């Protein structure tokens, strides 16, 4: 199947529109306790995900590499992963329902933003043709998705702790928000770490060195250490509540700097995909 550039862009915009409709339905359902709306939101989001998956798959075949070689592909696959992870985790942990208030808009905003970048076909350097690269990138994307969920819980905690009224009353109790934020931060940390290790194996296979202290690598390790400090504080120093939520948000910002900031600001193998 051939996918022209125009059709690719149009299909992506269609996915954006579907995700927006899903957001309206779902967020209305969650905030105003209207279950049919909420369920409709999930169904529409599922339909958007099917279309989005098809576009990514056909484009993958078309360009000959996964969605990680251009800002357009990176943001599109990140948004896909956020929605996919949210729906999977929702099946396992139904209490994460209110996270859709943040995860759904994050999905359509990232996908929409991706379409403002030139969606041209990029070539894949020969060193990038390694299964470890796919694992490396895939795990970072899962990590980002789980960190966004943890970020939502931290943000909800801070808002609800300040004023428990209006729509905030629909959220789970503070203790639940706190523990869920903690566990999803743990998921994010472990996927981040494994992603980093997979990258290290790829680097060893391609260049004979498993660590090179390039700016993105260094920031990735800083992020890992900061999440390590967060988890350490929570486990051994009983850090919780607002302090934990603020600390996590700081770590989350650092993770965004590692993923997007360094790719834009620095020059290294890791910035190739954001040129």
């Amino acid at each position, binding site marked *: 199947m051939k996918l022209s550039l125009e059709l690719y862009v149009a299909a992506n915009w269609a996915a954006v529109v579907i995700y927006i409709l899903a957001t309206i339905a779902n967020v209305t359902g969650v905030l105003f306790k209207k279950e049919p709306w909420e369920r409709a939101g999930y169904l529409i989001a599922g339909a958007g995900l099917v279309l989005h998956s098809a576009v990514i798959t056909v484009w993958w075949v078309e360009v000959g590499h996964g969605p990680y070689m251009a800002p357009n592909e990176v943001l599109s696959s990140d948004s896909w992963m956020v929605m996919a992870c949210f729906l999977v985790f929702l099946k396992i942990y139904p209490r994460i329902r209110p996270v859709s208030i943040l995860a759904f808009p994050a999905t359509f905003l990232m996908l929409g933003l991706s379409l403002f970048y030139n969606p041209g076909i990029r070539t894949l350097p020969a060193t990038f043709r390694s299964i470890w690269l796919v694992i490396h990138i895939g795990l970072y994307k899962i990590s980002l998705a789980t960190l966004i969920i943890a970020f939502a819980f931290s943000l909800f905690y801070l808002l609800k702790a300040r004023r428990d009224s209006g729509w905030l009353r629909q959220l789970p109790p503070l203790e*639940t928000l706190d523990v869920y934020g903690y566990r999803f931060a743990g998921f994010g940390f*472990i996927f981040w770490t494994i992603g980093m290790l997979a990258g290290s194996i790829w680097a060893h296979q391609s260049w004979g060195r498993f660590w090179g202290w390039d700016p993105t690598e260094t920031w990735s390790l800083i992020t890992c250490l900061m999440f390590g400090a967060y988890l350490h504080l929570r486990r051994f120093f009983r850090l919780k509540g607002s302090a934990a939520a603020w600390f996590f948000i700081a770590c989350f910002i650092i993770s965004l700097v590692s993923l997007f900031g360094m790719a834009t600001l620095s020059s290294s193998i890791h910035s190739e995909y954001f040129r």
Partner: protein
Amino acid sequence: MNKLKQFITARRVSLGLILLLAGLMYLSTIIPQVIDSAPENIEAWRRGHSGLAGLVDVCHLHSIYAQPWFAAIILFAALALGVSSYDQLVVVRKKVVSTGVASADELAAGIPEQLLRSVAGCHHYRFLSAGGDGQLKFGRCPWGYYGNLLLHTGLALVITVSLYVALTYRQGALILVEGEQRDGRQPWNVSEQGLLATPLKLPGVIRLDRVRVRFDDKKQPVEVFSDLSIGTASGQFKTLSASINRIQNYHGMRIYHSAQYGNAFSVTITDTNGVVHTETISAQQPVSLTKAGYSDEFRVSWSPYLLSAKYFADADKKTMSSANPELVLRLTQGNREIARTTLTKERPGTLGEYRVQLSGVARWSKLIFVENSGMPLVFSGFAIIMLGGLLQYLTPPRELIGIRQPDGRYHVYWKALSFREFFMEERDGMTAELKKGVA
């Protein structure tokens, strides 16, 4: 000794170490490092931060990762993790058999043993241990007890062995043009080694016979092979083919094909006095027919300006493996272009006051020779970290404990070792079944 151990494993020390390492790494991103910055960039930074330059020099902050004090911090971190792993092993062994109910929720009382066993089985709680006084302990995801232990053990192993690798590794890189030969007496194009290692030497003569590039139907390079002949002690030549992402082993060294390869152009330059100069210019393989591959800018003996080049794979823009590439030469001074010309094999040109001619094209590639030991242990450590992390965060253990009463029935308690809130439904389900069973 105990005080030292307490200090090494103190939670505050661990936290301090994590933050110290994160801080040092942050410093390395704002102070240019010798390892990844050009000397002129370091100089420019020093001029802009003259007040800090003295402190940076005293602490050697331009090469943080090569400092003995950094290695000492890493070693201390590995030691702390190792000792803490041992402590955790002791704790885990106790946890597995412990029937303490201090922080547990009481689910039900007066439960017969058979009902307790049946409810435990229905909820995938496996029998773990029986106390001497008739206590029963069941567990779900009992392997989760080992998560933190494995995570810390893996970290300790990776850090220790990585430090060993960093101190003892040796590597050198050769940039060779087809037909070119090197031996152990000639220097590497680039080489480096750990603090405790001597420079790597080539074990014999090595010759690059041919570079082969395979393109896909989109005209993108898919695979690159460098066919090598390596001289043995008996005077024979052994051939092997190095390729990107396919490591070759030779005499304890691993040979990597780098992503740097392309065409090497022989160019003859004739100046106004009629003196002929020859240059070999290696430029990176272009990624497509319409995009150029570039060389570095370099000084030449025959001109006060810098020379650089770019080339297109095919002057006719038809095939990526053309025998007639198009070469563009440039003379520059700072950011100013002094002269430019385009050459093909049949078409000579004029570069400023020089007449230039493309006299030959061959392929070149960069090969990296690495000698180190310990990598299997590093990767084993990676596997242990991954396993530990997944067990720790994906499978937190839960316990169902029955305390036998004088009437032979049980008080039943439940606890989750972490993330208790996630398992409330599981707990409530068991409570309901236990109470229903008694009723």
